[in-house]
């Protein structure tokens, strides 16, 4: 007989409890995502704002590099945070397996946790980075200078949220799959 997964609500409840009970830990993870994405969104925003400005073209090349660097920073920071949060929970993963959880249930829990944290912190980060750049621009050059942004703000915000969420999920789910696949005895032995 094969074990079937319980309704998704069971995994969702576990994910939410896990976030709530590990508030401090999860806050640190979320903050890492938020900072990375805020940096990315701010670089993208200032790039968009300076696009129509011929004097800034040279600076724009530098800024494109910064976009790349900011993404790299996001990736490293988020991966590190998520990797830690999975590793800390090997024993819990082993226990879940003893209770009859399938590998896919375990991965689902980590997926949902990462999805919730990823969406919330990337959204906050995107608006923070975008907002700061816009505010600085309005303060220095007046509100009219924002016209350069045109319809560019939506893609910036969406891409920041999308990238942040995607990295967070990937960074959590790859180690979670690996942990779920290892023999339960090995997972149970890990003491952190």
């Amino acid at each position, binding site marked *: 007989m*094969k*074990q079937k997964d319980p309704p998704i609500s069971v995994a969702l409840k576990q994910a939410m409890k896990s976030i709530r*009970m590990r508030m401090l830990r999860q806050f640190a993870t979320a903050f890492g995502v938020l900072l990375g994405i805020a940096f990315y969104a701010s670089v993208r925003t200032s790039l968009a704002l300076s696009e129509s400005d011929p004097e800034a073209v040279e600076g724009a090349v530098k800024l494109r590099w910064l976009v790349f660097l900011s993404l790299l920073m996001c990736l490293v920071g988020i991966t590190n945070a998520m990797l830690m949060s999975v590793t800390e929970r090997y024993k819990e993963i082993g226990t879940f*397996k003893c*209770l*009859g*959880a399938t590998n896919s*249930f375990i991965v689902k829990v980590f997926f949902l946790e990462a999805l919730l944290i990823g969406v919330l912190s990337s959204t906050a980060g995107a608006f923070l980075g975008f907002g700061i750049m816009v505010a600085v621009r309005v303060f220095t050059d007046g509100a009219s200078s924002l016209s350069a942004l045109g319809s560019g703000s939506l893609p910036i915000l969406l891409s920041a949220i999308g990238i942040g969420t995607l990295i967070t999920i990937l960074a959590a789910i790859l180690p979670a799959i690996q942990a779920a696949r290892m023999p*339960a005895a090995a997972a*149970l032995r890990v003491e952190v």
Partner: protein
Amino acid sequence: MEASRALESELIVRTRGVKKTYHLGDEVVHALRGVSLDVQRGEYVSIMGPSGSGKSTLFNMVGGLDKPTEGSVYINEVDIAQLSPPELAYLRNRTIGYIFQTFNLIQVRTALENVTLPMLFAGLSADEADEKGFLLLESVGLGERLHHRPTELSGGQQQRVAIARALANDPAIILADEPTGNLDLKTGKEIIDLLRKLNEEMGVTIISATHDLKMLDVSDRIVYVRDGEIAKIETRAELDLQIGEVEGIGEEKW
């Protein structure tokens, strides 16, 4: 032939030549060196042995938590090495209940939630699970502690939750690895009595690794493990004969 088959079906756990070897760099550790053990349905078996003798390793093999390097483990005459991961999950969920020295409760969930998780995995609705979980926690004396999290419970209480959780899907076997190892004398005694009661009243087969001499009193059989091998098996009848010497068993035999 008929008779022997009928007898066989009463063997709920069978291990045949189970070996487990760990490699730590260049060093090779023979945790189990060929263990063959039969456990009857409804038996209470204690596995005794000094630290490092292979009790936990055997526990892992029998519980389908790890695979033997060589040899086979049969649960209800099914070779568990042949099971796919979802089939193993099914076995862990319905056939076996696990109890650990360190309790291993899910820290972020309440006592009741810990007990109901295996039921939700088995497909029960949340209401059915809550109802049964409440009855189970009540039966281990924790009817008042349903919504406490593990950190808000004493060791003995946590172990009771773990026992209630192990019973969630009416398993045929309870596997316990030093269930009293982290408890004081009195609490340990209570846990042992609880296990004995389950064994007698519900017919659950209990296999428990232990250092605890109090376990001897309640076991049908005691399997002495030493250095990865079965050194000796003693039945309750044999034990009763030498009851006067029971004190000595713990020290002398190893």
